[in-house]
């Protein structure tokens, strides 16, 4: 299986490294022709505004939307979660997403960099150390979206930080920054191969 990683900006190399550790082939995707060769796709962490702008400039938005709609397994971390959201709160004015997951995502929901944190959470009955950097959270989800992990903030409220809707997976946190490939393996074994 060939997994493309959108390589316009952000930590795409770390995702490629995680893919290699899982024994799959990863390629950098900057053009629609490269996307065409992929069986699955990852949207990395980075600045969602910059990634969306570059995608628009290079006519990638429609090809990516079309592949997501036609069932290509796709995983987004942090900025990637924002890009997979059907609806945004606190986005930059006019900020575009690829969409696909029936959810509302709040950008920079946990705050600025001073509020970035590490925490242990439960992911698919696996204990996972997760890194959140200026991270978004999921504000609300449609009925077809499964919430996999949540984080409880100091006000006692619980917020989804990992969600799945059929062939689409999104996390607020960055598994690619840790040595634990559990999320990438889940994407490859459960999300990609169940199709």
């Amino acid at each position, binding site marked *: 299986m060939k997994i493309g990683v959108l390589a316009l900006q952000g930590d795409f190399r770390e995702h490629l490294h995680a893919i290699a550790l899982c024994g799959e082939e990863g390629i950098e995707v900057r053009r629609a022709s490269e996307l065409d060769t992929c069986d699955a796709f990852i949207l990395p962490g980075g600045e969602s505004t910059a990634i969306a702008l570059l995608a628009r400039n290079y006519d990638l938005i429609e090809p990516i939307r079309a592949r997501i709609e036609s069932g290509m397994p796709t995983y987004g971390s942090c900025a990637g979660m924002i890009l997979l959201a059907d609806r945004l709160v606190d986005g930059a004015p006019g900020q575009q997403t690829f969409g696909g997951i029936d959810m509302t995502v709040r950008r920079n929901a946990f705050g*600025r960099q001073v509020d970035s944190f590490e925490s242990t959470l439960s992911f698919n009955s696996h204990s996972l150390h997760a890194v959140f950097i200026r991270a978004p959270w999921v504000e609300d989800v449609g009925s077809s979206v499964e919430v996999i992990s949540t984080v409880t903030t100091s006000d006692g409220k619980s917020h989804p930080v990992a969600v799945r809707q059929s062939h689409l997976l999104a996390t607020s946190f960055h598994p690619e920054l840790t040595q634990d490939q559990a999320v990438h393996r889940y994407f490859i074994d459960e999300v990609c191969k169940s199709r």
Partner: protein
Amino acid sequence: MSQETGTARVKRGMAEMLKGGVIMDVVNAEQAKIAEDAGAVAVMALERVPADIRAQGGVARMSDPDMIEKIQATVSIPVMAKVRIGHFVEAQILESLGVDYIDESEVLTPADYINHVDKWNFKIPFVCGATNLGEALRRINEGAAMIRSKGEAGTGDVSNAMSHMRSIGGDIRRLTSMREDELYVAAKEMQAPYALVKEVAETGKLPVVLFTAGGIATPADAALMMQMGADGVFIGSGIFKSGNPAHRAAACVKATTFYNDAKVLADVSRGLGDAMVGINVADIPVPHRLAERGW
């Protein structure tokens, strides 16, 4: 569930998210908006761009908190700001404002000619300049979570950025080819902690993200630095001292993503209008060169 903030991993991880991007110097909210709209991954808020600091002289200090907060309120991308080398109180002030990254910068007038800020004391990550590997590792040892090669700020002359990137890259390559028993002397010679020297020798890269700064004025300059191994670029005076900042900013962003594609680089280099006039680094007397600041 415990949540830990200000760890080395979240500080260094923040810089990972900026990779492949352009960080632009801005002096007001309007410029910050132009930078964000052009696809900048972050902005550096400062009162005078390096070219003006150089031209006007005088002591250059941390920016007015009002100005920084206006920029924070205007853009949704990360906002960075500069403190003078060794001025830990300016750093405390910027931390209280919630800036996303602090640049302990040689572009401002140093506050301490011996020590840098002890950056481990802060929850906010720091980026610091370096001209060679020893300097970079000394900054990382003090807690820097990101390094930028210094270049010569405010000149539009890319030659020093080039020599600093070659120096850092060359030193890293030399370390990876050394016998283990030679690393002790290498650490002594580059005046860097042995543990970090050994880590670089083993991994073949810095333990933090490495950007380039100082003298980048065109899309081709940005791509040159990316091909030299930079993880991303800072553009200071190069954008807002040029004829058409919005156009040039967007062109530099594209050049940083497609740095290996000469066709794209040719495309984005067309019709940019006047680049900043610039000064040749060779014409600046040594005592006025900013890259010499840092110890």
